[in-house]
């Protein structure tokens, strides 16, 4: 049985070399699409992948160009537009209603009454649109591959192949790509012969890679060119680029220019010459360039009756014998409405109507220069038709050689493109096939005051469809130039941006960088303990181990572990280490004795807090810094920036990946460590905010006594490779204390009870230490630090807002349960108030950034922003919804810090 594919419930046979379009055409399909707004019939036109007329859905993928997609057995092909079908489209009626959908109707219609818009939008969405996204299909996300090459040649036509050959001869690594198979778009003849010959030569070079069916969709900084291939997206990073994408035939604009039966000559010749199919039985050809005559000959050979050829007089001698020749004529219109039945040609002698079923247009060439115009700088050059539309084969080869050998400096010349020949445009007809924009629409837009190509484009949406202006970009520029009286600015080609060709979301999705999941050394231990792990920046961290309130109690009442291996960890050495730390941070460093640590705030040059951490002075003059988990790379970058700018001798080692860290916290933390260590841990030898090198269960640790959770606590920084060993030893030795690890959920309440701020959760990008109530962490009397002058400036301006401690569910307001205090507070769902606005009376004065119910305190604790009055004062009696909130000084829990200093 002959191979076939399914088309709207029927089987369509596939012949050798068929594209989807040629197979459908052979099966009798003439209407391939319906136009966007007016639902006019559209048939095959360019057959080079440039126009939007043949877009179909293939295996659920909408917007597939059927004229360049090979037909494969078993495909499921459907047309996309029209209701109930593309052939019988009841929405065709909308043309009668054209005045209701005028140019710019998006901006004009349904603005009033406002409530009508959602309804109108739904109807318009149904009437317009190109295809439907499949809903029941898993995305086929394609992998991205990166390729380097000395030279990338885009387009394997005559010029491109010549360029690839010339570059390869110089010993360069060449990648040449084409959106089809080499030579397939060209009808048999001298051009195709030349292409085949050059392709054989190019394939002979070992240093040349040929990528067929890879479409260059865009040029990006680098330069990087993205190629959309059948099962991959290729990002090419070339040393230089030769754009040899050729040219597309001028789109003919006249009344009835878009009905099935109007063909670009290349398309008609390809249909006849490659697929053996006739564009019509009887054709009229309109020719304005040298390329037309061979196409007419191809059609004649295939058996098409040429009713007449309309061309300039000097074409007479190249016309095949016996063809009726109409010199110096002009196409006025087609007749037939749904298909070509006749055309009207105008000459000096008057108008004549000629019966025919096909109109063949060879009107000249417009460079397919989107890519070239995306990358106008060195090292991107054009070759062949894209810079010299209509050049001869020899000129194309010559141009390719120059570009390939690096001699051409002819990147597209902006001035030249302004002066490019303009295609003629009648006073009626469809200019933009994709968006159904007519000549009249352009004039209407101009008359409404849109006076340049760029804004006419935006207003009418001309050039904004799937073909991205391949058909009408030049027409639009020429229109604007003419109406503006020749202004280069008004009539400039609109800016070219990726994608140059339609590209699927699946291809783009594959280009997203791989998601990096960072794991600490204890990852498997957390999983085994039943942890719920989730994203925290690029890390996966335990949020809880099943019951965060019991984890919380372990910290407050006994002892608990937390994996903080994610903390940023920097070691700073070199003779200027102290100077660097002192000058970068607002923290006082000079009196920080070896063995002591201090809270560290990091300010940007604008005086805004961007990170915090801890600084430890080591015995040998070096410093050890910690930063937030998400801030490690930024902290390293910041330190290196200032070391470089001040030319300081400081060596910075980011130890984040090589060190693990475990917090041991709770009233029994010291007892637990003492059972595993011989080192002195008593509060005199190892007080709060000190750090010591100790061995715990034989693992060397830098132990830092800190107090983020408000209890006696040690951070044990240790070699990552020994993390599991240390964790297991601590867990085992903690059995008598009913030890259990705690996750981020428990930490949230622990730190809130202490009023500790989470940067980025409680803060905003423009927070100064003053807004956060952290002036104590800034030594303004230091000679200098990054951000100091900015803080001095802002000290002269009243504070606009303050971060404050919040008591949520006030005992006096929340009902009987609270009268006598604490446990059993009526406000149970405090966490639901996160992010809620805060009111003082009826005035909106702030917002809650974090909050949680505290069973120990008997009320909700939180942090939040409040707007200040002119004197820097904030209101104290607040509400969030109907819950009473009051401002209280943090910390709420153990305000004097007796527990963490124990």
């Amino acid at each position: 049985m002959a191979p076939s594919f399914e088309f709207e419930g029927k089987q369509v046979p596939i012949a050798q070399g068929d594209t989807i379009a040629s197979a459908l055409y052979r099966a009798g399909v003439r209407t391939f699409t319906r136009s966007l707004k007016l639902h006019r019939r559209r048939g095959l036109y360019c057959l080079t992948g440039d126009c939007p007329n043949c877009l179909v859905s293939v295996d659920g993928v909408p917007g597939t160009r059927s004229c360049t997609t090979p037909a494969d057995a078993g495909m499921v092909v459907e047309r996309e537009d029209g209701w109930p079908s593309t052939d019988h489209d009841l929405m065709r009626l909308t043309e009668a209603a054209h005045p209701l959908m005028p140019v710019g109707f998006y901006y004009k219609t349904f603005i009033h009454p406002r409530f009508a818009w959602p309804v109108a939008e739904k109807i318009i969405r149904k009437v317009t649109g190109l295809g439907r996204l499949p809903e029941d299909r898993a995305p086929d996300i394609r992998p991205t591959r990166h390729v380097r090459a000395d030279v990338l040649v885009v387009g394997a036509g005559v010029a491109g192949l010549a360029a690839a050959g010339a570059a390869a001869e110089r010993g360069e690594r060449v990648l040449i790509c084409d959106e089809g198979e080499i030579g397939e778009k060209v009808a048999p003849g001298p051009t195709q012969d030349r292409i085949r010959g050059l392709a054989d030569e190019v394939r002979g070079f070992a240093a040349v890679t040929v990528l067929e069916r890879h479409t260059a969709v865009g040029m990006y900084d680098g330069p990087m060119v993205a190629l959309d291939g059948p099962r991959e997206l290729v990002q090419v990073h070339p040393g230089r680029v030769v754009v040899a994408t050729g040219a597309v035939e001028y789109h003919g604009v006249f009344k009835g220019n878009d009905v099935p039966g109007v063909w670009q000559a290349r398309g008609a010749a390809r249909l006849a010459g490659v697929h053996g199919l006739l564009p019509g039985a009887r054709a009229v050809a309109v020719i304005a360039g040298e390329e037309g005559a061979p196409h007419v000959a191809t059609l004649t050979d295939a058996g098409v009756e040429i009713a007449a050829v309309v061309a300039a007089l000097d074409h007479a001698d190249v016309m095949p014998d016996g063809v009726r020749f109409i010199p110096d004529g002009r196409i006025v219109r087609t007749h037939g409405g749904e298909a070509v039945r006749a055309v009207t040609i105008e000459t000096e002698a008057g108008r004549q109507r000629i019966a025919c079923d096909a109109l063949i247009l060879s009107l000249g060439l417009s460079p397919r220069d989107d890519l070239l115009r995306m990358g106008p700088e060195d090292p991107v050059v054009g070759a062949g038709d894209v810079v010299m539309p209509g050049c001869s084969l020899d000129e194309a080869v010559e141009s390719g050689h120059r570009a390939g050998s690096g001699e051409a400096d002819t990147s597209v010349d902006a001035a030249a493109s302004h002066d490019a020949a303009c295609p003629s445009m009648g006073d009626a007809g469809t200019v933009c096939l994709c968006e159904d924009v007519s000549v009249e629409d352009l004039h209407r837009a101009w008359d409404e005051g849109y006076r340049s190509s760029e804004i006419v484009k935006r207003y009418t949406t001309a050039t904004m469809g799937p073909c991205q202006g391949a058909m009408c970009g030049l027409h639009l520029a020429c229109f604007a130039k003419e109406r503006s009286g020749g202004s280069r600015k008004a009539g400039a080609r609109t800016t070219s941006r990726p994608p140059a060709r339609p590209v699927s979301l699946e291809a783009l999705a594959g280009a997203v960088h791989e998601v990096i999941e960072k794991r600490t050394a204890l990852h498997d231990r957390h999983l085994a303990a039943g942890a719920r792990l989730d994203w925290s920046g690029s890390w996966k961290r335990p949020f809880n181990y099943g019951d965060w309130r019991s984890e919380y109690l372990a910290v407050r009442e006994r002892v608990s572990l937390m994996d903080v291996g994610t903390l940023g960890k920097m070691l700073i050495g070199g003779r200027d280490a102290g100077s660097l730390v002192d000058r970068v941070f607002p923290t006082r460093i000079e009196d920080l004795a070896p063995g002591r640590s201090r809270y560290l705030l990091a300010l940007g040059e604008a005086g805004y807090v961007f990170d915090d951490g801890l600084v430890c002075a080591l015995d040998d003059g070096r410093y050890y810094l910690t930063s937030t988990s998400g801030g490690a790379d930024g902290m390293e970058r910041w330190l290196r920036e200032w070391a470089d700018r001040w030319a300081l001798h400081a060596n910075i080692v980011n130890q984040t990946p090589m060190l693990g860290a475990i917090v041991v916290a709770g009233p029994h933390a010291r007892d637990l460590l003492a059972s595993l260590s011989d080192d002195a841990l008593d509060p005199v030898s190892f007080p709060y905010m000190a750090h010591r090198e100790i061995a715990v269960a034989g693992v060397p640790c830098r132990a830092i006594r800190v107090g983020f959770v408000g209890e006696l606590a040690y951070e044990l920084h240790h070699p990552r490779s020994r993390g599991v060993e240390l964790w297991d030893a601590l867990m085992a030795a903690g059995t008598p204390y009913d030890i259990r690890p705690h996750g981020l959920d428990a930490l949230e309440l622990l730190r809130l009870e202490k009023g500790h701020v989470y940067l980025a959760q409680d803060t905003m990008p423009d927070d100064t230490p003053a807004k956060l109530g952290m002036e104590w962490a800034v030594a303004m009397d230091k000679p200098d630090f990054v951000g100091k002058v900015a803080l001095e400036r802002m000290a002269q301006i009243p504070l606009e807002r303050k971060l404050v401690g919040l008591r949520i569910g006030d005992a006096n307001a929340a009902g009987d349960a609270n009268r006598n205090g604490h446990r059993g507070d009526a406000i149970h769902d405090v966490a639901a108030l996160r992010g809620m606005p805060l009111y003082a009376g009826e005035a909106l004065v702030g917002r809650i950034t974090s909050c949680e119910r505290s069973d120990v305190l008997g009320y909700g604790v939180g942090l939040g922003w409040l707007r200040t009055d002119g004197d820097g004062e904030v209101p104290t009696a607040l509400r969030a919804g109907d819950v009473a909130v009051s401002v209280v000084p943090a910390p709420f829990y153990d305000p004097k810090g007796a527990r963490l200093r124990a």
Partner: protein
Amino acid sequence: MALKVPCPNCGPRSYTEFSFGGELRELGVTDIEDDFRRVYLPENPAGSQEERWYHELGCRRWFTLSRDTVTNRIEA
């Protein structure tokens, strides 16, 4: 547009390996108003500018170079 960034350690590399540090800013400014202009009012020229680059996905070195913001041509 072409954008290969010349790292003093590693030679010309794709810009995607670097993070951009913005315009080179003056050091040692102590006047409040001058500092405000320095921090908040960058020149943002259409043309040549001195700027900072950090080879984050490479040797992690900072350096200053001069680039034309219109053409991406790197001058030094």
